[in-house]
């Protein structure tokens, strides 16, 4: 049975072009980028070229990009690094309740270390309340962290406005752009972003590589101490093959962004339009300000895990929410933050399209899903 993959928000397959670019760096050009010999300098050159490509997607200076192992590491570095480097200036951090777990848990850990953490309320679409944000800012606020686009419901936050507010109050602004990097336009200067997280495996690059943009002048402590790699901010022998892959993936994403975005919006809208015809079903997240490839629905009287399993048996790979949190039995913190009751949050389905999704895939899902929902509702004790 052909598998239809609709979980691109969790991860993406490595593009063949990316894989070809990476291959030499495993067994031919395998030098350590810190070595002085020719194999080392060759690896170093490849690393710096990748850095330029990754930086160009967000119109940043390459020297402001450090490579990490993942989006999680980048987010940890951003929050903890800024917090500890600036604790003489203040101890207050502001974030949102719909952030990825790695941001929320970093913030909770910082709270245990003596920092104050406040959460900006979000509305029913997951949009941050800008007025409340301004009210929360104090003299000792050192960091605002708001994700660019939510990984579960796809809502795109007004980060340009948030960046402006942060700049007016002389507060660092970090945004987790793991879901939006390479998919929608980001300009770190125009948006007044001080730190931005990206990772490769969301844009058809390899897993195990992330990036963190740190604007020149931002005071930040490293998470990893050692040989002083990545401008002293992330010591560790660089994953050259992975970084080269990230660079290639970024280059392709930048080149194909506009056309791909339009195509994905059409597919997404077809999906949304048809699935909303099912009774007792609604769309989560903002109807317009959402990622081109994200559609998140809630179905009454259904348990999301059963829905995902049943769809899997029909050849459709989807998810209920964040893959990172899929083992937990708790309802999605994002859906509860936007006001859904626990039983409604449990009945959610996230469908995210990507580069290899076709119209035929979408048509198949539209054909299969209503029957799946109907049969599961027959079994529901809630109906």
């Amino acid at each position: 049975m052909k598998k239809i993959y609709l979980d691109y928000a969790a991860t993406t397959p490595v593009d063949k072009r990316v894989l070809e670019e990476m291959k030499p760096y495993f067994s031919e050009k395998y030098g350590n980028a810190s070595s002085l010999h020719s194999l080392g300098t060759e690896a170093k050159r490849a690393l710096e070229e990748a850095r330029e490509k990754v930086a160009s997607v967000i119109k940043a200076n390459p020297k402001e990009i450090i490579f990490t192992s993942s989006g999680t590491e980048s987010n940890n570095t951003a929050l903890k690094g800024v917090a500890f480097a600036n604790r003489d200036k203040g101890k207050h951090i502001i974030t949102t309740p719909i952030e990825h777990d790695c941001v929320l848990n970093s913030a909770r850990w910082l709270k245990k270390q003596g920092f104050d953490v406040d959460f900006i309320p979000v509305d029913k679409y997951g949009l941050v309340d800008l007025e409340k944000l301004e009210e929360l800012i104090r003299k000792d606020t050192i960091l605002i962290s708001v994700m660019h686009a939510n990984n579960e419901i796809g809502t795109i936050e007004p980060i340009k406005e948030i960046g402006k507010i942060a700049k007016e109050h002389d507060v660092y602004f970090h945004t987790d752009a793991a879901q939006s990097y390479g998919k929608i336009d980001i300009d770190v200067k125009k948006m007044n972003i001080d730190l931005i997280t990206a990772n490769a495996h969301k844009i058809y690059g390899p897993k195990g590589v992330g990036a963190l943009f740190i604007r020149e002048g931002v005071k930040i402590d490293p998470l990893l101490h050692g040989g002083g790699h990545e401008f002293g901010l992330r010591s560790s022998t660089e994953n050259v093959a992975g970084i080269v892959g990230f660079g290639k993936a970024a280059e392709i994403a930048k080149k194909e962004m506009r056309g791909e975005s339009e195509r994905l919006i059409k597919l997404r809208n077809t999906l949304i339009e048809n699935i909303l015809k099912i009774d007792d079903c609604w769309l989560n997240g903002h109807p317009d300000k959402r990622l081109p490839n994200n559609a998140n629905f809630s179905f009454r009287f259904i348990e999301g895990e059963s829905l995902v399993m049943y769809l899997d048996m029909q050849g459709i790979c989807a998810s209920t929410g964040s893959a990172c949190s899929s083992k937990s039995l708790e309802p999605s913190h994002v859906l509860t933050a936007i006001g859904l009751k626990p039983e409604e949050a449990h009945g959610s389905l996230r469908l995210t399209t990507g580069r290899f999704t076709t119209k035929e895939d979408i048509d198949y899902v539209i054909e299969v899903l209503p029957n799946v929902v109907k049969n599961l509702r027959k079994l529901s004790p809630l109906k």
Partner: protein
Amino acid sequence: MIFCIPCLVLVLYFLVASVFFPKYRIYVKDGWMCFIDKLKGKDCSLSFDNKMRLALSVWFAEKNMPAIGRFIGNKRNFTIVMMFVGVILTIVSVFLFILMIKFLRNPPCDTGVCGL
């Protein structure tokens, strides 16, 4: 460890079913891996047992027997039913095996029992 029996029953079912319907062959492999996991006292790594439980309960729902579907949909009920089926199948198989040995030693037609 004993909870591996439901997976074993499913493996046997799919072994027979895959002879007539090749599309079920993958379930033999998945079921076997699940059986080994459960034999070791671990959770089924491929969620094969959960998928089969869901498939069976949905089948009852499609046949307009949602109450049975809901009953089977409960993890504990599914395990008990499959273990019960496993025990019955074992008893029936052993009985038929003993009967076969008996008839091989004393074919019924030779003693005039079958009336031919």
